[in-house]
């Protein structure tokens, strides 16, 4: 099966979702989002896949939403419905298997929000992160206002989203947004490979439960989380 803006590759337990819209610096249009959603759902139900890597072969990871599509719908109701019916961001958040983002170049708007919805981020030093929404009279729509606080603190979240300031990998690393960075892209690929190799031996069910519990820790009450940890741990024996 092939898609217009997404390439897909599967090698044993590792799936790769590759953004492929280089002419628009991987700006996410409606079709690309729907293709991304389709591939993600396929990865979700394929039990051979234990980890998903989201990356690109072109210069920039993702330059955000495709602004050329904005204001093109005949009615606000219609464009409202499109954003309401788009479950991609919630699917990403609820995705049970680990997601790794491997970035370079622009990581802008929705692109930035995608890495905030993922579990691990490996970034080339060329990566530039920015949330330009407020500058463009928009608000984040891909979960940014919620997910930033899971990884960093409210002061940094406001600095990034209210001031629309661009940050580099060093700042992103200090802010807890990315996990690893390097100026050698091949080295980064090798690091990701080692990382995914380690995941290979882990039981998929265990992997899913641990991710779910960790995500719960930032938003559920401690006693419920602790109880579920014991319950799941017991059920896996």
């Amino acid at each position, binding site marked *: 099966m092939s898609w217009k803006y997404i390439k897909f590759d599967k090698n044993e337990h590792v799936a790769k979702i590759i953004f492929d819209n280089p002419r628009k610096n991987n700006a996410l249009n409606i079709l690309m989002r729907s293709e991304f959603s389709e591939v993600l759902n396929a990865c979700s139900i394929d039990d051979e896949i234990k980890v998903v890597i989201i990356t690109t072969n072109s210069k920039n990871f993702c330059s955000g939403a495709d602004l*050329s599509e904005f204001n093109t719908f005949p009615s606000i109701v219609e464009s409202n419905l499109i*954003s309401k019916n788009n479950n991609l961001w919630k699917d990403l958040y609820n995705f049970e298997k680990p997601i790794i983002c491997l970035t370079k170049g622009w990581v802008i708007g929705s692109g930035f929000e995608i890495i905030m919805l993922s579990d691990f981020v490996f970034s080339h030093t060329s990566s530039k992160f920015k949330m330009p929404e*407020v500058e*463009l*009279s*928009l*608000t984040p729509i891909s979960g940014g206002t919620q997910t930033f606080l899971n990884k960093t603190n*409210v002061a940094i979240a*406001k600095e990034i989203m*209210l001031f629309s300031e661009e940050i580099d990998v060093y700042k992103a690393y200090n802010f807890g947004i990315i996990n690893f960075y390097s100026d050698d892209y091949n080295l980064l690929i090798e690091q990701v490979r080692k990382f995914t190799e380690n995941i290979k031996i882990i039981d998929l069910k265990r992997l899913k439960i641990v991710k779910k519990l960790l995500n719960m820790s930032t938003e559920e009450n401690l006693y419920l989380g602790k109880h579920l940890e014991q319950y799941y741990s017991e059920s896996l024996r």
Partner: protein
Amino acid sequence: MNNPEPMSVLNSDKYIIISLKNEIISPEEIYYDLNSIIQEINTNEDIWVVGFDLTKVVKICDIKSSSESLNISLTKLILEIKKPVIGLVSGEISNRLFEMILPMDYRITDKKSTFIMSQIFNDNMQFDGATQLLPRIIGLNKSKELIMFGKQINSKEASEIGLVNIIVDEEKLNEIFIRKIELLTQFSPLAMQFTKTAINFSKDTNTIRGMNMENDLYSILLSSKDRTSSINSIKNKSKRNPYYGK
């Protein structure tokens, strides 16, 4: 707008700066005036950004009357501001002054400033929200260090843990303060307001519910003239002129 003592209020194009003028501030003295100023800020479409200049304040006292103490909360007032709030502080930021900066969205200080909450050593405790607001900003671990052990930190440490956003030279404090405020006046006021609301909401709800709220706010913004004109100006490569979208 009136200039009630001991506060001064500077109204400028699209922003307002509230300066506390005395070294020692009693919350009762400013609460009612501040309350009415904030009501006006929230309803006045010409005010997009709010600045708080607290550089002259050395101490904010405890409330004298215990019957009034539950009604007078400066942080609650600041939390009610819908527009982005930038705070400027300098010197030893302690106890209730420390608490007062916590509900602000962006904090600026100088290299020499220090931060301390020592109430626990004085048979006292935090009153104006620090036990709730501080962990939301710097996390539980660091908050316990500061609140339970009364640890004093310098501005560099404060910046590293996310308590302040920017440290500048003392002589540049005011310049940077104004520059940051003016930067925000270039952006869409409604988008700023909604983004702030959604971020603040995120700590008190789960991610999926928060994402639904983000989506709802986006839907409201979708019909604003501000957004439509902004997108059109990007497409036409013309000058963008944000205004309080209706």
